[in-house]
């Protein structure tokens, strides 16, 4: 069983996301330390991409700030190394980035390095089931989980995707791009039931979740909850002082879903 799958064994999992390099990689690293300290089960590390077509304005702007600040794939790798060797982060880490970031680095070179540094998987929102083999074959070789996404529009595709999934399944709660939503209108319970009838791989819901109440409601249906934009917003607001605030926020969600 992969480290990612194991992270779902102690009750509901909370998976916070952070854009690496916003405002700088030291702050990102400290935020991740705080996330672990406050009960995060897995952390999703966003490697910034210039043109993130699945993101709403919050993560788009954070990505741009990170790139403008000089963040690169190699610098993110260096930070991961520090997290594992110096900062005591032991929870699973998954990269969340776009196909071109991995492809241009060399899929093999990227996966080899990720594994070597202690990364457990990756999420590529612009690589659907039809295109995954090119990435998944190499992920498997390095024992990385390529996380599959299932959307409210997936319908009859659900079982095809779910039966080949590894690590966890990322259930997209809503149509549209990432970002805080006041209300999630999709029938999430039905979506989770359909996924669960096709696989034993744990599933986590993301997109649009920001409050502890929303997280608690989502956790009733799924094995875990993912929060991105709400955390990136906190980082944008507090800058270098963000780690303590991020820790506090993570605790509020963890308490709500346990």
């Amino acid at each position, binding site marked *: 069983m992969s480290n990612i799958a194991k992270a779902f064994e102690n009750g509901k999992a909370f998976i916070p996301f952070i854009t690496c390099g916003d405002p700088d990689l030291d702050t990102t690293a400290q935020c991740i330390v705080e996330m672990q300290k406050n009960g995060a089960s897995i952390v999703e590390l966003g490697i910034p991409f210039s043109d993130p077509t699945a993101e709403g304005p919050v993560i788009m702007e954070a990505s741009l700030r990170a790139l403008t600040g000089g963040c690169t794939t190699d610098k993110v790798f260096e930070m991961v190394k520090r997290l594992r060797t110096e900062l005591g982060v032991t929870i699973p880490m998954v990269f969340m980035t776009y196909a*071109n970031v991995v492809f241009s680095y060399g899929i093999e070179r990227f996966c080899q390095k990720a594994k070597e540094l202690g990364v457990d998987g990756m999420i590529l929102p*612009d690589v659907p089931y039809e295109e995954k083999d090119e990435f998944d074959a190499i992920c498997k070789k390095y024992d990385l989980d390529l996380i599959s996404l299932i959307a409210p529009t997936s319908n009859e595709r659900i079982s095809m995707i779910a039966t080949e999934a590894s690590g966890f399944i990322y259930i*997209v709660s809503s149509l549209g791009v990432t970002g805080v939503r006041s209300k999630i209108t999709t029938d999430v319970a039905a979506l989770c039931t359909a996924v669960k009838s096709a696989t034993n791989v744990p599933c986590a819901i993301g997109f649009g979740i920001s409050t502890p109440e929303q997280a608690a409601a989502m956790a009733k249906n799924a094995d875990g909850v993912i929060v991105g934009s709400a955390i990136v917003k906190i980082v944008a607001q507090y800058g270098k002082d963000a780690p303590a605030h991020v820790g506090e926020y993570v605790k509020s969600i963890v308490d709500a879903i346990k």
Partner: protein
Amino acid sequence: MPDSKGRFGLHGGQYIPETLMNAVIELEEAYNHYKDDPEFNKELTELFNEYAGRPSNLYYAEKMTKDLGGAKIYLKREDLNHTGSHKINNVLGQALLAKKMGKTRLIAETGAGQHGVATATAAALFGMECVVFMGQVDCERQALNVYRMKLLGADVVPVTSGTATLKDAVSECMREWTTRIDDTHYCLGSVMGPHPFPTIVRDFQAVISRESRAQILEKEGRLPDYVLACCGGGSNAIGSFYNYIGDEGVHLIGCEAAGRGIDTFETAATINTGKLGIFHGMKSYFCQDEYGQIAPVYSISAGLDYPGIGPEHANLHDTGRAQYVAITDDEAVNAFEYLSKTEGVIPAIESAHAVAYAMKLAPTLDKDKIMIVTISGRGDKDCAAIARYRGVNINE
């Protein structure tokens, strides 16, 4: 033709969020159903001929030919189409398809505004809702087209993210489509994006070379030696090339925008400066940095100001079947003025890139050679910008 997974050689594919997968599958199924449907094709041909003014003329540019002193030059006059460019060919096809699919709303990206105007036009004709995404920078340099779109009843949304140009407009369209799929068709304007768009757009634009082939055979009794077209995403170029791909003697030349030069960062010449990557739903060549971050490209031409190229072009380049040359802003502006003065045809600044290469190539060729240059659009929209480029201030 692409393979079953929408690949042209290495290129193409469907690199899009899961949320959109069923939408592109539905589109592919609908297209496969209608593309050989006699009723659909009859309706489309009627729209082409009765509404858009096709077939477009293949005009012998005698003065230009004599002045350059080499190959015999014909202009394929897509600038004479309704709405002023080749964009209407694709849009009428997609709008008709969308209508058959029961869609009531069209969304589109636009660079120079020509595709946006064409989409707004088709939406008006078919009684559909229309939203056009256009980079803020492009809204400013193509203000006239923004007004035209609004006049036609479309909403124009200025895009401020990234470089606020064509690539950001495409990104924003993809985001919008994931938000509202049921009633909305994304009327993509070039031979790019995820499968099946590169094939659908190619097929609707292939009317350009279907006509030019018949026209040149009638006028000259033989095929041309060269076909030139400007190439950003590459829709007018693929349309101009498509029916000659099997004719080995016909040289196919795509003219990319070099901006201030391919040795500078201010360029949009993808084949000449880009490398293999994955972006906007497709694998193809892209201008990008060593970490795969998409480059902030530049060209005086808003329609060619795009960091990628359609997958079929990438494959035509790989196989050597087509050649891609780079033309600078300066060369394009000179050609814009040259064609206006020599033939009384004001070409779009995009098309002027093809004219510029014709001006270089024709004098080096024998007089018995024949060249077709596609004038993809008319240049009225560019007059204010070219005047500014020349230091003349005019009020639009």
